[in-house]
């Protein structure tokens, strides 16, 4: 590991250079990054560019797709719903309508949740994370109750007790968002164990970030799932950052699927910005483990289009990196990929856009109009009578 500080940049500038060659596991302090951005310095990863270290699995890629139009439209509906929900959450947080400090947006990562959950049944299960809104919406959560919860309202999923990071809805298979990095993986193992007991072919998906692969529960859970052949898919949403720490610095290898292999688990890296690729992979493996239970590890590579939380100045990202983000927008990639599908008329897309817009509006109004919970409720509900 190597850390670039102000001194390094100043030396570079003194030398008259405007390009900085950095290696795979470099981090840059925010003061240095500020200088880099101000002086238009180009970061040159050379051969060490993280992407080059990753084996691109071609298996689930397809230039064309032959999924039925309804499924495709359903993907669009879910992705757009997440996108607009998050835009509203962002606005509401920025304007102090949402209390608290912690709203982690799923903007730019929509394809993973949607591609995954489209392959799941209602009685399949997920564990989610601090960045959970997308997972919940994709799994079918009621956005009225979600937005109400974000505002701390009585009508919210948790009656205002949980907030953004703690929404749970077992009836539709949501075992809970979670404020503790890495805590969902063991819980997912337990759910998969329950599926084995129930013998109902249901599966559990555990979402978590690249940063979570460094938490102890990661290794414990992969081993546990393997030795008990649990029907669980570990989906690592690799957005290259744990807050401001790049994966290339924080993880021993940028090839996260290696870690899965270390536990003798079938592991694959996919493009998590392409909903079709995510769907193809997850669908394939779910089919497989419904019949033949056992864990799968999927590293879905994606991009966080905004700050870690609303309010994050992102002073650790170069301007160039930020400018390049739109290329990876999963909605753009989706629309490009369906452009030549004659069986998907623009009018149907527009219908969906309208529908989503009105649902979001309805949710926001519902949340806004809902009352706060009565204060004396504060110490209720922690034990079941």
């Amino acid at each position, binding site marked *: 590991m190597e850390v670039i500080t102000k001194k390094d940049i100043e030396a570079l500038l003194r030398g008259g250079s405007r390009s900085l060659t950095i290696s795979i596991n470099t981090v840059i302090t925010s003061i240095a990054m500020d200088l880099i951005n101000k002086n238009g310095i180009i970061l040159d990863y050379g051969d060490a560019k993280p992407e080059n270290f990753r084996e691109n699995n071609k298996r689930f890629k397809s230039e064309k797709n032959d999924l039925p139009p309804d499924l495709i439209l359903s993907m669009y509906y879910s992705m757009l719903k997440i996108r607009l929900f998050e835009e509203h959450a962002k606005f509401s947080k920025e304007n102090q309508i949402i209390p608290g400090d912690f709203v982690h947006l799923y903007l730019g990562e929509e394809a993973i949740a949607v591609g995954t959950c489209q392959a799941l049944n209602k009685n399949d*299960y997920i*564990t989610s994370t601090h960045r959970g809104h997308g997972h919940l919406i994709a799994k079918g959560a009621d956005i009225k109750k979600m937005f109400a919860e974000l505002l701390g309202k009585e009508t*919210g*999923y*948790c*009656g*205002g*007790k*949980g907030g953004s990071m*703690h929404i*749970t*809805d*077992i009836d539709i298979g949501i*075992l*809970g968002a*979670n*404020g*503790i990095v890495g*805590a969902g*993986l*063991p*819980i*997912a*193992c*337990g*759910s*998969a*164990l*329950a*599926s084995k*007991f*129930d013998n109902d072919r249901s599966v*559990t998906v555990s979402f978590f970030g690249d940063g979570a692969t460094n938490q*102890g*529960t990661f290794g*414990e*859970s992969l*081993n*546990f799932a393997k*030795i*008990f052949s649990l029907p669980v898919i570990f989906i690592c949403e690799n957005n290259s950052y744990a807050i401001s720490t790049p994966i290339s610095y924080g993880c021993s290898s940028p090839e996260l699927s290696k870690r899965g292999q270390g536990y003798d688990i079938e592991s694959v890296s996919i493009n998590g910005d392409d909903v079709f690729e995510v769907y193809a992979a997850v669908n394939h493996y779910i089919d497989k483990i419904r019949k033949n239970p056992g864990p799968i590890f999927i590293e879905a590579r994606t991009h966080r289009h905004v700050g870690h939380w609303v309010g994050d100045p992102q002073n650790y990202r170069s301007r160039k990196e930020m400018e390049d983000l739109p290329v990876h927008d999963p909605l753009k990639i989706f629309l490009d990929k369906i452009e030549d599908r004659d069986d998907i008329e623009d009018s149907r897309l527009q219908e969906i856009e309208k529908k989503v817009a009105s649902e979001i509006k309805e949710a926001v109004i519902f949340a806004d109009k809902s009352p706060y919970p009565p204060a004396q409720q504060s110490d*209720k*509900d*922690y*034990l*079941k009578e």
Partner: protein
Amino acid sequence: MREISLREAINEALAEEMERDTRVFMMGEDIATGGAYAGVTAGLSEKIGTDRIINTPISESCFTGAAVGAALRGYRPIIEYMLGDFVMVAADQVINQAAKARYMSGGRVCVPLTILCPTGGYLSQAAQHSQSLEVFYIHTPGIKVVYPSGAYSAKGLLKSSIRDDNPVAFLEPKVLWDEVEEVPEEEYIIPLGKANIVCGGSDLTIVAYGYQVKQAKKALESQTDYSIELIDLQTLDPLDLGTILKSVEKTGRLLLVQEDYRVCSLSEHIAYEVNASIDLRSKIEIISSKFAPVPFSPELEKDLLPQVEDIVSGIQKVMGDSGQKIVG
């Protein structure tokens, strides 16, 4: 009546509850293969079957979290830490997940989970294998805490714990594992949240739990000066304050006995509650462990942990200035 050991009593409770309800299952290290230190699971892998007696790797965080996941799915897991001290490697799953899941969901979910924690000292097992961790659980809302004092209460309390819809930390005084008590063959249940009045008295109330109940009994046997009421708490959270207050109202004096350290302890809590509502005839005394990690060497450990003699002196001290001896 037949006599069985604490270990056997726990074993019976586990077997009976697993036979009664197929949603009950158990996870722990070596519990199916004969290497389990506690031995409370002996024979269960044969009796109940190895699909429900699950031998785990040394991954306490994972199997605790897995228990939470299975509980959310409607199962009723029991987990065993080989020693209660090892909860520290799984603390997040207990404190931040199991205990908070219900509240954070606004009461939408529940986590019926029983955690077996072999607890305490007196066995020369040193600092990492002898801790009294009840406060760790009591101070956390969302998890109940049970601490039996022997075979009889263990069996009845464990059955209630397993049937409870909430996480329950079940602390076993391992120094008593081999100690026998009369335990009926017929099924019985001891409800959580109820203390047991071991013997009645009018001069002094002694409140104890776990192994200290046995020690307090010995202390009582060694004296006939006073009429002493001994209360075995059985459940530490929720606490049966009613029974304590009623007794102290009668006796006007209170001696609290615990193996745990005094600072921020259950005894200090009870003292506060009693002081808040009763005017006592003498100051409350607490017998507890000295404040240091538990040592290995027997004489050191004996000095650190409460002994019967300490309880006897405690009785003298509380009665000292204010008590009148029973004139025989």
